[in-house]
């Protein structure tokens, strides 16, 4: 898997929650050669299936979401745009930030910021909330209302590029990095006989309400699932207790959202393959699609596998190439023979 190439393509596409179209199209194209069948469901999620050919085979669903955090235009004032977040945006990153407004063709905007001379020192030490901010699109009120109507979505303007020797940095790596990991896992499994029907889900609207995963799971009816998403990577200003170092391997979730034998299976597979891995204890909601997937229909055995990602929900999300490889290797091992273990436990 050429992560640099695939992620440069996927991350550059705009796909805020509810507007994933272009990303889903690319995801479908990337998925097609690796599965028997691929489709896009009513909520815009991409579903690929690789069947094992056995009767009554268990269904394993691997999920990574395609949407990214973004913005939506809520009003116009003197030609400037008012906006609201789509997902958990960090407002501290917004002043003087370039955005892409998803009009046709797309337009550039800059989040306006007040110059220091008309502010007090106290003002300048205070973070501004999104309610106080505007986007400058260089248009008059009339032009702005006509060209960029209320409801227009917007995203950060970065793509994804190498940072140093080992890292990749950009927007939307949460969670397209993990979608690329799913593709890599499929590549690693190609030509091998499986004992489950394997469903790959590129889900929509995770950042808002997990809508894509909820509705897709209803249709797929999986027996087992793994939500593959990002967790907080370390950074110099963050507590080491709450973050996971980049380059030290995938992070296996443990807690009520994670079916115990699946967590254990992941840990065992990592040990067998001598892959580095880390454990994240999650006392309740995992903050991933694993949470709703677990209670789909009559319930689904759920694993949460995470990729450490630094600067989550920013235009500079950062991941380690080796973690991508290791997560894919671990997932492939997790899939091999999982049908038998599931049947043994039934």
């Amino acid at each position, binding site marked *: 898997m050429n992560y640099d190439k695939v992620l440069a393509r996927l991350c550059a596409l705009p796909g805020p929650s509810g507007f994933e179209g272009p990303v889903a199209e690319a995801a479908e194209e990337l998925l097609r050669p690796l599965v028997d069948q691929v489709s896009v469901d009513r909520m815009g999620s991409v579903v690929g299936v690789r069947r094992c050919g056995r009767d009554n085979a268990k269904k394993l669903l691997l999920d990574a979401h395609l949407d990214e955090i973004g913005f939506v235009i809520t009003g116009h*004032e*003197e030609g*400037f745009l008012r906006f609201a977040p789509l997902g*958990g*945006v*960090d*407002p*501290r*990153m917004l*002043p*003087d*930030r*370039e955005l892409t407004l998803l009009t046709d063709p797309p337009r*550039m*905007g*800059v989040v*306006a*910021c*007040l*110059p*220091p*001379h*008309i502010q007090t020192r106290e003002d*300048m*030490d*205070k*973070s*501004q909330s999104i309610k106080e901010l*505007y986007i*400058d*699109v*260089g*248009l*008059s009120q009339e*032009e702005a209302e006509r060209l960029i109507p209320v409801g227009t979505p917007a995203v950060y303007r*970065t793509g994804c*590029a*190498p*940072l*140093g*020797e*080992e*890292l990749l*940095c950009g927007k939307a790596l949460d969670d397209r990095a993990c979608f690329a990991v799913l593709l890599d896992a499929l590549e690693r499994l190609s030509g091998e006989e499986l004992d489950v029907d394997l469903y790959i889900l590129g889900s929509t609207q995770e950042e808002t309400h997990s809508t894509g995963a909820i509705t897709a799971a209803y249709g797929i009816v999986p027996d087992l699932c793994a939500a593959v998403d990002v967790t*907080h990577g370390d*950074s*110099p*200003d*963050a*507590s080491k207790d709450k*973050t996971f170092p980049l*380059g030290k391997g995938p992070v296996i979730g443990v807690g009520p959202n994670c079916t115990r034998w699946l967590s254990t299976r992941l840990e065992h597979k990592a040990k067998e393959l001598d892959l580095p891995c880390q454990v994240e204890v999650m006392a309740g909601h995992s903050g991933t699609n694993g949470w709703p997937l677990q209670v789909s229909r009559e319930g689904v055995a759920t694993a949460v596998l995470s990729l450490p990602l*630094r*600067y*989550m*929900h*920013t*235009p*500079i999300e*950062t991941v380690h190439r080796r973690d991508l490889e290791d997560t894919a290797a671990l997932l492939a091992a997790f899939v091999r023979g999982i049908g038998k273990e599931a049947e043994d436990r039934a």
Partner: protein
Amino acid sequence: MLDLLNQLCALDGVSGDEDRVRAFIRKKARPWAHSIRTDALGNLIVFKRGGKPAENKVMLCAHMDEVGVIVTKITDEGVLKFDFVGGVDRRVAMGKSVVLGDNRVPGIIGLKAIHLVSREEEKQVPKTDSLYIDIGAGNREAAQALVQPGTYGAFAGAPEALGSNLLKAKAIDDRVGCAVMLELLKEDLPLDVTFAFTAQEEVGTRGAFGAAFSVTPEIALVLETTTAADLPGVEGHRRVCAPGKGPVISYMDGAAIYDRSLFETLRDLAEEYQIPWQTKEYISGGNDARTIQRTRAGVRVAALSAAVRYLHAPASVGSTTDFQDMLRLTRLFLERVAEGL
């Protein structure tokens, strides 16, 4: 001129590290210059003969440098500590990309994820001391192979058109002044003119000290940018000025009272030729004019500035029609001065 401005804004030249900008300007100016030299402070002084001999009577001045960062320390983890060079509001720096040194090393100004920030912490903007640049180096040695303490960094970002007749770019302050001067250099001038492309304006108009001393003009016109705050929710005079309403003609700012008759000359020329113009409605800021004015026995100074939103930030916004009008008005000003000879 806009093409030239785009090229100039794409160059990195933080105060004290103006070499790339100076080399570019020198190359562009050479075919038109009568004499050209770089002085001890890094200013580029270009002299061009015109229709009337005037020697050092008139100096046009624009600064080459831009605000940015400088690496102060490399930590054991391979993270760079830095200071801002020039006045940067740290709120516009967080999460932004920078390009470091001659090796053009990409870096980002990191900030831990909002989920990891306490409710109390969230209300305050992190202090500059706590900020850092991440270049993806795993440790001190890996970082040191790419950058050293003292390596300069400029904000990243390519110039681009925005909305109706606006330009988004870094370093519009003051590459627009440089572009106007380079454009005039190509033209037949009505009198001899000295063009001073100065260094280190952003850290205290340092270059202008030497440039004004060596040139010692009678009249200096500073071509600059000035901060605009024409945003919703900002009332009346606090908006200062607005892109698209013409060049700003200064009568006073936070650092100088401009020569009244030069102010009136510029104003009357704008009126006569129907060039839109504005003044700053708020006394703030300062530029090379303050230093030039107090050189030797004194110099009569004037300033013509483009109103620019988000000045000193990676995505500054100015009006391309204002830039063109600055060029027109400067040209008319030189003619008027020549007529008076």
